């Protein structure tokens, strides 16, 4: 029996080194560093210092109290207090496991439990800790809770790394593997969370306390449709004349007759006494009138008002109902005491005739026209969709050809010789220049850019592109032919030299840019401007030498990877353009072309080009290279290869990406209006500012419906094509 039982392996408690622990207590990470865990030690030091600084800075900023010395003192006190609490808990655990549970490995009561308990305690007795360690003044201007939680986490982290140092030190001597840093990472995350909680201004009590504020709005935003329609309104107002006071013998103006079709009101008697409010207080009611009315719109409200002989209308109070609902027959019967109306001065002679007014502002239950807001929202929405559409369209047109330049698999086989590249560069410049001349000429003969913008633009694009490409090809061939006359080496060196000289110009610009950018920050713009040409010249020389040096290095193979260079440049540009949000471009575009949808379209187009080109080029990079190879073997040139081998392969992803982008663009353009880019966002922002929450609701609903519909349509289309 005893034999079959497997003896549990004897596990020793890990050894600790007090020395290493002590070192880390003084300088975080020092113990680890000394024990040989260099990276770990440095990481811990940097982490603790960074978190300490970050906490301090946050607290000081939050407190608007930049006296760092004081804040540091206060914060350190909090950290120490927390550390003391944690040490106390750890000691308690030690005693408990050692002497009560008799568990030297401390497996029953894990360290994590202690840390958890520590944080729970901090949560509940935190106020007391703060009150104990901070002066009243500090308490008043330091956001205590941030300090408390980050301080607690920092204390835990500090102690953790002390324990870690002791363990690593101990194990280093016995040569064991280093343990994980999971604990430190969790604690550090807690600390960052505490800071984030504070910096983002998370305020749960406020959120719970003040939910009613939004509770009033929410129904109007959620169900705004009443405001979507315009309602026809009819106003009926009929008057019964009443004489008051009623002199002896007077009969009054007489009750109105009952009308057959029009609204009417009639009262008896038509002569009576006014109510009186004596200065001693109280109220003596005037004569009670019985009022009947008919031919009003059933089910809706009427108001009873009173106008004194001078004609000032008011709503009598305490004399009887003044707001009545018309019964199904179109009438009502009620009583009203003649109110305490002001009468004409006593000098005025003659009868005092008042008016009893019954007024109904009837409203149709269903609107028959769209309201102004709804119209504006619909037009805004249309504009939004169109902005998205136009941006997508322009985006495709520009991104599709450009994406081939950003596809590594297509570009990397393109090699050039300096002889050819020189001709290419000069040719493309000459071609481009010629293209601009052609455009100018075309523009002049068409009557100027304003007269025929689209035509001039198209001609310009075609001329510059066409002549540029022609120049590229022709220049390459010509210069190659010309330079080979100089012999194999002569041509190489001459073209390399000229290329280096050409590169000096961008180098000059770069040097100037350095001077105007970085130097002017350091030295101030005026000082930097004095000798900026020197920096330009330095840049020119540097770049020229670099280019020549590079070409010198290629003198054996004579193959320069121009394709890859171009790829790198184009890719970088796309990445930079893409990394700025369209909203930011919209702000710039609104300054450039003014507020409105054009600005939005421009901004969105720019962003779309960059991101579509990136997506397209990735689609190109993932195609099957087999057909490319096959077409190369057939003797197809590059254009043919692209049309017959690349395009058919990328069509499905390209369609899918494009539709997806269109979807994104419409979504984006709803926001563009916020910064002046036109579309529904523009009017939405105004409504928000004017607290027109029903109109806001309409806009939000329309946006939501559109986006949802678009989402559905775009995913359907994409499913079809993939």
């Amino acid at each position, binding site marked *: 029996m005893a034999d079959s039982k497997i003896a549990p392996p004897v596990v020793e408690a890990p050894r600790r080194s007090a020395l290493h622990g002590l070192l880390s207590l003084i300088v975080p990470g020092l113990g680890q560093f000394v024990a040989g865990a260099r990276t770990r030690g440095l990481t811990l030091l940097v982490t603790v210092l960074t978190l300490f600084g970050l906490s301090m800075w946050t607290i000081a900023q939050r407190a608007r109290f930049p006296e760092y010395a004081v804040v540091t003192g206060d914060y350190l006190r909090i950290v120490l207090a927390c550390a003391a609490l944690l040490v106390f808990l750890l000691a308690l655990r030690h005693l408990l496991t050692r002497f009560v549970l008799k568990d030297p490995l401390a497996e029953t009561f894990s360290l994590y439990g202690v840390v958890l308990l520590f944080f729970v305690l901090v949560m509940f007795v935190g106020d007391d800790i703060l009150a104990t360690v901070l002066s009243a003044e500090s308490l008043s201007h330091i956001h205590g809770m941030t300090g408390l939680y980050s301080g607690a986490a920092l204390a835990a982290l500090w102690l953790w790394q002390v324990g870690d140092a002791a363990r690593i030190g101990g194990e280093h001597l016995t040569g064991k593997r280093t343990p994980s840093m999971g604990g430190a990472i969790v604690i550090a995350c807690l600390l960052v969370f505490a800071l984030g909680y504070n910096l983002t201004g998370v305020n749960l009590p406020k959120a719970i306390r003040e939910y009613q504020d939004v509770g009033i709005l929410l129904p109007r935003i959620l169900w705004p449709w009443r405001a979507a329609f315009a309602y026809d309104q009819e106003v009926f107002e009929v008057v019964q004349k009443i004489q008051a006071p009623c002199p002896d013998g007077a009969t009054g103006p007489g009750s109105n007759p009952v009308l057959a079709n029009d609204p009417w009101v009639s009262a008896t008697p038509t002569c009576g006494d006014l109510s009186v409010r004596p200065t001693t207080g109280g109220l003596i009611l005037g004569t009670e009138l019985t009022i009947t009315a008919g031919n009003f719109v059933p089910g809706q409200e009427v108001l009873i008002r009173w106008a004194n002989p001078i004609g000032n209308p008011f709503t009598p109070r305490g004399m009887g109902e003044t707001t009545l609902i018309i019964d199904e027959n179109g009438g009502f019967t009620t009583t009203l005491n003649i109110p305490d109306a002001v009468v004409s001065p006593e000098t005025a002679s003659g009868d005092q005739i008042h008016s009893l007014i019954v007024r109904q502002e009837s409203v149709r239950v269903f609107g028959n026209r769209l309201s102004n807001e709804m119209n504006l929202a619909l037009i805004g929405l249309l504009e939004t969709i169109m902005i998205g559409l136009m941006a997508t369209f322009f985006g495709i047109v520009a991104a599709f050809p450009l994406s081939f330049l950003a596809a590594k698999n297509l570009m990397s086989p393109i090699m050039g010789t300096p002889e050819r590249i020189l001709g290419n560069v000069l040719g493309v410049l000459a071609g481009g220049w010629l293209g601009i001349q052609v455009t100018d000429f075309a523009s002049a003969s068409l009557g100027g850019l304003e007269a025929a913008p689209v035509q001039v633009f198209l001609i310009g694009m075609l001329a510059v592109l066409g002549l540029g490409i022609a120049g590229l090809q022709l220049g390459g061939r010509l210069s190659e032919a010309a330079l080979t006359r100089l012999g194999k080496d002569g041509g190489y060196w001459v073209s390399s030299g000229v290329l280096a000289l050409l590169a000096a110009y961008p180098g000059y610009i770069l040097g100037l840019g350095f001077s105007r950018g970085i130097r002017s920050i350091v030295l101030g713009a005026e000082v930097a401007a004095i000798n900026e040409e020197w920096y330009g010249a330095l840049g020119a020389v540097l770049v020229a030498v670099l280019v020549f040096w590079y070409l010198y290095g290629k003198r054996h193979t004579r193959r320069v990877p121009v394709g890859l260079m171009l790829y790198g440049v184009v890719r970088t540009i796309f990445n930079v353009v893409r990394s700025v949000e369209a909203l930011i471009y919209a702000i710039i575009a609104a300054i450039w072309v003014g507020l409105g949808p054009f600005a939005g379209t421009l901004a969105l187009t720019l962003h779309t080009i960059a991101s579509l080109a990136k997506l397209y080029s990735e689609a190109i990079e993932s195609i099957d290279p*087999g*057909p490319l190879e096959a077409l190369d073997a*057939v*003797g197809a*040139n590059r*254009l043919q290869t692209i049309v*017959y081998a690349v395009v*058919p392969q990328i069509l499905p992803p390209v369609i899918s990406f494009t539709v997806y982008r269109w979807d994104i663009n419409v979504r984006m353009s709803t926001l563009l209006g916020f910064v002046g880019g036109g579309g529904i966002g523009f009017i939405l922002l105004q409504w928000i500012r004017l607290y027109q929450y029903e109109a806001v609701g309409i806009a939000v609903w329309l946006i939501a419906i559109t986006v949802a519909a678009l989402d559905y349509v775009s995913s359907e289309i994409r499913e079809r094509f993939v």
Partner: protein
Amino acid sequence: MLTVEHLTMVYPDGTVALKDVSFEVKEGEFLGVIGLSGSGKSTLLRCINRLLEPTEGRILWNDKDITHLPQGELRTVRREIGMVFQQFNLVKRSSVLTNVLSGRLGYTPPSWALANRFSRQDRELAFQALQRVGIPDKAHNRADELSGGQQQRVGIARALMQDPKMILADEPVASLDPVLAHSILGYLEKLNTEDNITVLCSLHYLDLVQRYCERVIGLRNGRIVFEGSKEDIAKMSDERFREIYGEDAIRMGGA
């Protein structure tokens, strides 16, 4: 017709795929290239039409040095040399007809590509080519709807469109079963005998080599280690065989 002199090919990562390879291909010949996987067969075939740029050596096409021919002139050489691939290398989403027509691209003006235009004669030629490889009814199917054997026949039809003097076939039957392999090689043989098209074909299986090739060169680690007729292969000793196929090779099949 084709002369390869001291050809050496080093890949950018330093792999020496071919080392000082020299041989000659005569007009109308059916030449086999054998060798283990990784011995450099594909590299050799791709160097011939300069899909890969050789590092050293010369390639003479009809006595003209094409080793450093610029792109424009290379096009006129390439269109005379058809190529058939192990993985067929068809554009899967395009129609069979378009795939076959693309074999004509070396002759059509590049700008026509923008309008996706081929002349009437070219279309007629494409149908004839499909007829020759026995799948005229598949012209309007998408290429990926065809079976492997049919796809390789499209590949041959595409090469035919070039009106080639020579066909380079890089393991054209390696991804097909034996029956299909014979059918495909049968088409190549027919082109070789009927149209006098020179064929340079790399193959894995000796029985196929003995059945179809007139002459064979054997590659090992990028060097030519064997050159001879198919009779030579039949009577090749096991030691000689191991020289080509490595120490642990076993002879498979037979004529």
